[in-house]
């Protein structure tokens, strides 16, 4: 991932140690978290496919 490219709206967490992540206070992640939760609350938008509606 180049740092000088087209900046996205998603926070980059690659440098965060996993062991501290559950308790880490990371204000820069707040807007990404709000975007994520809005998708979580709209589950129909996450599924794609071909004729998945016929898959019993």
């Amino acid at each position, binding site marked *: *991932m*180049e*740092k*000088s*490219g*087209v*900046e*996205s*709206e*998603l*926070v*980059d*967490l*690659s*440098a*965060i*140690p*996993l*062991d*501290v*992540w*559950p*308790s*880490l*206070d*990371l*204000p*820069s*992640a707040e807007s*990404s*978290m709000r*975007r*994520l*939760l*809005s*998708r*979580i*609350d*709209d*589950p*129909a*938008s*996450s*599924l*794609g*496919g*071909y*004729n*998945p*509606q*016929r*898959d019993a």
Partner: protein
Amino acid sequence: MREKSHRHALCPGSFDELLGGGSGSATVEALWASERSWRLLVVRALLDSAASASTGPLPPLTDGWRLLSRATAQRAAERVLSYPTVGVWAAHTLRRLRGTAEDEAPVWVETGHLHAIAASAAVLAGLEFRTVVPVRRNWAVLPAIGAMRVPGPEKWSVAEVTSSREGVRIAGHPLTGPRWHALTELRADGCALMLDHTDPYRALRGAASEEPVADTADWQGLFGEAWEILRGTDAEEARALAGGLVSLVPRPRAERFRPHSASSGEAFGAALASVPDDGEQLAATLVHEFQHNKLSAFMHLYTLYEGRSAQLHYAPWRDDPRPLGGLLQGVYAFLGVTGFWRRRGHPLGQFEFALWRAQTAHALSAIGTVGGLTDLGRRLVAELSARLGPWLHEAVDDPVRAAAELAVADHRATWRAYHLRPDAQDVRAMAEAWSRGDALVLPAGAPALAPGLPGRGFDTRAVLLRWLLADPAGFDRLRDDPGATVSGARPEDVALVTGRGAEALRTCHTRIVRGDGDPETWVGLGLGARAAGDTAGAGVLAHPELVMALHARLGGRADPLELGRAVAEADATTRHRTGALGRL
């Protein structure tokens, strides 16, 4: 603890590739990196929401996270955190905790799946450990590794997982023997996928049956065949696909030429597919689902449309109306599918190419008229349209082109007939004009969307066309009783696809006059009339919902073909007026 962070960024080359529907291996690698951040966010939201939830007989979730953290220090274990079903688990369980999803399993079984994820990572990292994982209906699953049968009287219970110098054991049993079901790895020269038939979150829409698929032998041969086709079709795109997909979730075989497949924005790297007819169909499915995967990951990075649009639209690849997000996913996937079939020159390949280029172009054009896209969303649509544009002019054999045109007209008209309703006052006014012998005037407003319940797949005639093009001998065998082989097919459908339009027209006309005119029959009437050179065909196919409503309003007494001709004339008049106004 507070830390600074920055945002992901795509290099301009990768950004442009994805906007145009393509991708190289470097782009896919960048998407894996951004998806890891997305995954961590979902898991964090889940852990925060689960903080006060009961863990039942399982250890605290912090214990599971600690083991996962230890394990992922080893690179091999990182792939468990990124494994597709882990994303489905986190999203589904988070929805349960937020009250927007349901499941039969107790919440502790779902939140406690974290211990199973951690155990998988620890096994792959070669750690020595001891933990406890949930058991669902006698199955203890290690994601990305396999599942152990743990018989017991309880539907939901727990099992101990231990790893020591003596090996890994679940409920005291080693990962060998008849109780253990290891995932099968499908291998080809340059590509490998886990055939995941055990993970409870493999179905992409929440938890699935725990029972593993018994027979996975067919898949290896089909996968090898598919990979050779993909590599021979476009080696660079195949390499990107091999880097992007990690698991294939098998589903039962569907009817011939009617495969099911799916993917989820929460499961980057996964494709769910019914047992394909052959390797070529599987290759097309992998291309299709990989496109969905890429766009979903791109949409985690950038916003293509605003809001949660409740408005539904025509999607030429589905029987049901779809929201804007579904349309975007569809055009992205079918651009890839069109590109795949473009390089397959046999009659079926030409048919699929001609069909999907037309349907994708139609949807791209429609999206341009729908509100809600961001500037970037509009740019994506423009880039996809620019890539598709030259393909619309490429030559296809005449009979195949005609077959694709029939399938396109059939799907569009059937969708309208099922899901659109003209305004009742407009219909009454038209019926009165008809009774007076006046020329009809089309309603000024668009019909309302009122999703109906299709009586059969809208692809029924298209499936018959596929039989005809790919297997003429098989088609000959099914033509006497088409519904026995192609669900929902009727004799008049066989007549339509074999060029006997007049015969189909008579059958459909008789049925409508008798009072049995379902949407498929009306569209069959339109297709038959068009084939016979009757202008009624244009009227019925352009406005089937209106012709049907008018016929019903007139008590079934008006001749269906005469109504179709009158609507066609009204349509032509409207178009003429609109064109004249446009020239003023």
